[in-house]
Every structure is written in C-alpha cells, then in structure tokens.
C-alpha cells in the first residue's frame, strides 16, 4: 500500500504540472486516509485533504473542494503547523467565495490580510499577498447581501488604512459604505475587476453583481425615502415593480431592512415601525391589574377573611 501511495502522489504531481487539476485531485483522493489500516499522521491527512481541495478549486469545482476542506476542518484543531493552517484558511476562503457565501468569505479574507506568519513558517506571506487578500475581502463584502452584517464589515474595511491604496476600488467601497445609490458606470468599472464566478448568471436572471447592486440601491433608497410606490421603486432600481416589491419583501423578512409593505396600495414604507406599542402597554396594564389582585388577596388573607 505504501508504494501505491507513493505512485499516486507522483502521478498527481505530474498531472498538476500538466494543469490537469481535477484528475490530479481524483488520483490523490484514491489514497485511503480514513480507515485505521495504516497509522497516518494527522498533519499528513490534513495536508492531503487541503491539497485535494485546492486542486478542485483550480478547476472551479467548489462542491468537491468543499467536501475535502470539511474533512480538513475536522483535523485542523489537532494540527499545529502554521503553514498548513494558512493554506487551510486560504482554501476555505476561496471555497466560500466560489459558493457565493460572500460575507463569510470576506471575513476570512480579511483575517488572512492581517496574518503575519512567524519566521519559522514554511509558507511566506508578503505584503502583496496581504493586499490580494484585502482586495478579495473588499470585493466579497460589496457583493454580499445588503444588511447589518455587511454594514459592519464595510465599516471595518473602510476604516482600514490599507484600503486607501487601492485607488480603483476604494472610491466604490466608500460609496457603498456611505450607502449612496450606485450608478451604472461605477458598477461597470467595478465589474471589470471581478472573477468569472462573480459575473455568473443566477437562476432568477441577472448576475451576482446585479443582484447585489439592486439590493444595495434598495437599502440606500430606504434611507432617502419614508415611503415609495412599487412602480417608482422599480424605476429607481431599473427592475419591474413586482420584482422591486419581491426584493423589498425578502430584505424585510430577513431583517436586513426595516420596513413594511402595503400590497393593496402598492406602497413600501421604510423604517422600523413599532406596531406593537399599544399591545405592550396593554400587557403593562394587565401586569398592574394582576399586581393589584395579588395585593388584594394578600390583604384578605392577612385579615383572616
């Protein structure tokens, strides 16, 4: 079995040189890492799982990559190798990015951009690598669905001094952070720096970027208007009125935008409406009445009646 493993590793290396990423991953995944037949070090298993995940990522196969990175996740806590940890974090961030879990990816990219591996670490990380990670964090945050979590991430990135050196990206980041409505030309300029999977078409139509921009502009509109008709909102966002209403409904339901929708009058009201104030006051009155009943009963008991 040992010579079989060595053969697989050599074959995988050769396939990698030929840029046959998926085939190399398949060859490596044939190595039995799970059964107790051979005593394998956790570090070796971890390295192989990460390697397979990264190979699948090279071929834009995030589904298989995620399967192996999850196996690596179970082993990472027992491993103290800084280089492996760095590889794992990078790989996981890229998988999240490919799977369009942009906020999680952004958080991990940002964490990577702040890493400073020790001198003893096998893997070196220079300023360029950290800048790349930071750019990825900014891109993913902008593409993430609008809401409070994204706002927090945007704030962190905007206030990070290093962001200002990206002259092509920082003005757009600033506009997004300040919740200003984004216009077509700015969005197109931003889209030039995106990877293919960011511009992939979604099942409902439109790209990831389109959806993100529409949601952002909707959130921005909610800051400008107290209420707006669905037709007017559709015109503002460049989509049909029904789609604008559906988008607003999703954002309200997910707690990413406070508001309410009057479908009968085709109006969207922005801002948190405390609809239950009177009901809560009612509960207070009931509590007071019950307290009086309690006191009454105590008095009756005290009097021995």
């Amino acid at each position, binding site marked *: 079995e040992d010579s079989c493993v060595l053969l697989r590793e050599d074959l995988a290396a050769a396939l990698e040189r030929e840029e046959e990423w998926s085939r190399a991953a398949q060859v490596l995944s044939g190595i039995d890492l799970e059964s107790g037949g051979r005593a394998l070090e956790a570090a070796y298993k971890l390295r192989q799982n990460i390697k397979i995940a990264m190979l699948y990522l090279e071929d834009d196969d995030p589904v298989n990559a995620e399967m192996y990175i999850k196996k690596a996740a179970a082993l990472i806590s027992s491993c103290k190798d800084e280089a492996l940890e760095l590889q794992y974090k990078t790989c996981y961030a890229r998988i999240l990015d490919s799977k369009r879990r942009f906020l999680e990816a952004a958080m991990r990219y940002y964490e990577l951009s702040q890493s400073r591996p020790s001198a003893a670490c096998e893997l070196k990380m220079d300023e360029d690598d950290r800048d790349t990670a930071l750019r990825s964090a900014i891109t993913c945050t902008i593409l993430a669905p609008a809401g409070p979590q994204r706002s927090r991430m945007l704030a962190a990135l905007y206030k990070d001094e290093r962001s200002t050196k990206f002259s092509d990206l920082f003005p757009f980041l600033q506009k997004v952070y300040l919740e200003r409505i984004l216009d077509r030309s700015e969005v197109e300029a931003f889209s030039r720096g995106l990877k293919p999977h960011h511009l992939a078409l979604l099942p409902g139509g439109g790209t990831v970027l389109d959806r993100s921009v529409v949601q952002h502009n909707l959130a921005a509109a909610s800051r400008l208007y107290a209420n707006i008709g669905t037709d007017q909102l559709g015109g503002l966002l460049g989509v049909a009125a029904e789609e604008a209403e559906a988008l607003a409904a999703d954002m309200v339901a997910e707690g990413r935008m406070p508001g309410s929708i009057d479908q009968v009058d085709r109006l969207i009201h922005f801002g948190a409406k405390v*609809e*239950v*104030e*009177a*009901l809560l*006051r*009612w509960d207070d*009155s*009931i509590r*007071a*009445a019950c307290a*009086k*009943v309690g*006191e*009454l009963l105590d*008095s*009756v008991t005290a*009097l021995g009646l």
Partner: protein
Amino acid sequence: ALLRQVSSLINGLPACDTEAFTREYLTEYNDTLLTLYLAA
C-alpha cells in the same frame, strides 16, 4: 381599605381601550388567522 383596593382595581379596567390598541390587536389576530390558513 379593602373596598378601596377593589375600587382601584375595577377603575383600572378595561386595561386598554384605545383605537391604536384595537388596530394592533386585530392586526395580530388577522396575521395569526392568515398563518393558520396558510398552514391548512
């Protein structure tokens, strides 16, 4: 003293009788009925 306590209790009822309360109460009621209808 007991009778005064009773009187104070009764004077505190109804616990809430405003238009806003009625509106919110019926909205909750209708929302729940709608949920039940969807469930059915």
